[in-house]
């Protein structure tokens, strides 16, 4: 793990990159990284995030600034700007059931090619996908998702990069921290090694590439 400034971290992300962002309706989203992505105007992003949040919050800021080219998400209904951009074909959107979304990312982080899920069988979600029977029950083959970058928000990070999360801000963060080539983390608090007891570490330090230093 290397501690870097938010400017240095975002400078590593090229335009057009695939970027996973933790958070659920903006809760547990690394806001400082998103503000900097907007400031450095990184465009054409392929965004992988549970939802589009709301304008002005979390990944919603990227839609405000028109920086998203492709979105993989489960729900965008609370962000009218993302909806307009989808209906106007300015962004391409893949909508994925939430349980499938998280399992595809988990698979990507765990070296699996994909997962078999009953969710979506017999619906629009099944179109173009392989259906596989196991013990007589139908499942869809849902392929793994990875990204070039994961932007993760933790509650505590220690000097080595061990992470814990808080309350409902955990959501997709620890799963995404496994599934990208480069993992960049912001934390509410940076604490000495030992403050997070081994049993309480959720994301172990070797998974973290960059920790955003206190401003």
């Amino acid at each position, binding site marked *: 793990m290397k501690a870097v400034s938010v400017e240095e971290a975002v400078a590593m992300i090229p335009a057009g990159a695939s970027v996973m962002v933790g958070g659920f309706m903006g809760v547990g989203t690394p806001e400082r990284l998103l503000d900097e992505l907007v400031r450095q105007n990184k465009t054409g992003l392929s965004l992988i995030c549970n939802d589009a949040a709301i304008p002005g919050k979390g990944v919603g800021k990227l839609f405000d600034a028109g920086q998203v080219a492709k979105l993989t998400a489960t729900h965008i209904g609370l962000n009218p700007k993302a909806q307009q951009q989808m209906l106007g074909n300015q962004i391409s959107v893949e909508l994925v*059931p939430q349980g499938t979304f998280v399992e595809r990312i988990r698979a990507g982080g765990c070296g699996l090619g994909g997962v078999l899920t009953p969710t979506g069988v017999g619906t629009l979600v099944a179109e173009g996908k392989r259906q596989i029977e196991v013990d007589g029950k139908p499942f869809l083959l849902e392929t793994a998702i990875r990204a070039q970058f994961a932007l993760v928000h933790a509650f505590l990070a220690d000097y080595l990069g061990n992470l814990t999360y808080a309350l409902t801000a955990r959501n997709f963060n620890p799963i995404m921290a496994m599934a990208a080539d480069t993992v960049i983390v912001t934390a509410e608090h940076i604490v000495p090694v030992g403050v997070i007891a081994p049993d309480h570490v959720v994301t172990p330090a070797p998974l973290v590439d960059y920790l955003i230093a206190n401003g």
Partner: protein
Amino acid sequence: MDPQIIIARRVAQELKSGNLVNLGIGIPTLVANYVPSDLKVFFQSENGLIGTGPIPEQGMAHPLLTDAGGRPISALPGAATFDSAMSFGLIRGGHVDVTVLGGLQVDAHGLLANWMIPGKMVPGMGGAMDLVSGAKRVIVAMQHAAKGKSKIVPKCNLPLTSARPVSLVVTDMAVIGFPDGKATLLETAPGVSVGEILAVTEAELFVPDHVPEMKL
């Protein structure tokens, strides 16, 4: 009684002590208000919480403690938090006893459509498809008709949420179940006759000899 309150009160009667329950947005959220206080029900919020409590008082909200709509909530003593893979493992894995969801249409075989209206409303399915596929019991809480049009239809013309039928539909007029795969009138709302229900229901409804009235 307000139609939404009829629905919420009747659905609340379906919950049993010890149940793990997931409530969707809208009418389903109201169900929590009518669960008797001596009933120990665990409410799950799919963004990563079991033990969801009421909306906190003014000034007591925590920015990192929200429901699946991003609104501040509280956590009851004994609450547990977890990541989204765990949350949907609970849902898909059959660990959630009851889910209560809103509906756009339910058909004569109990199939539900509740996530998109092509060309008009494409918000995304969020957790709905996993909930309908995986929860032990799926209860749809919705108005019987919208703008005079029946929401209980012979066949859904909106995209389905799951190929798995729901367990029960509770509306402001009736309780409908699907024994043997066909829509059956189980209860009438107070003051509503079987004839009135049949008149506004597009799907064919099987009517047993005796149909009791909801006890609210």
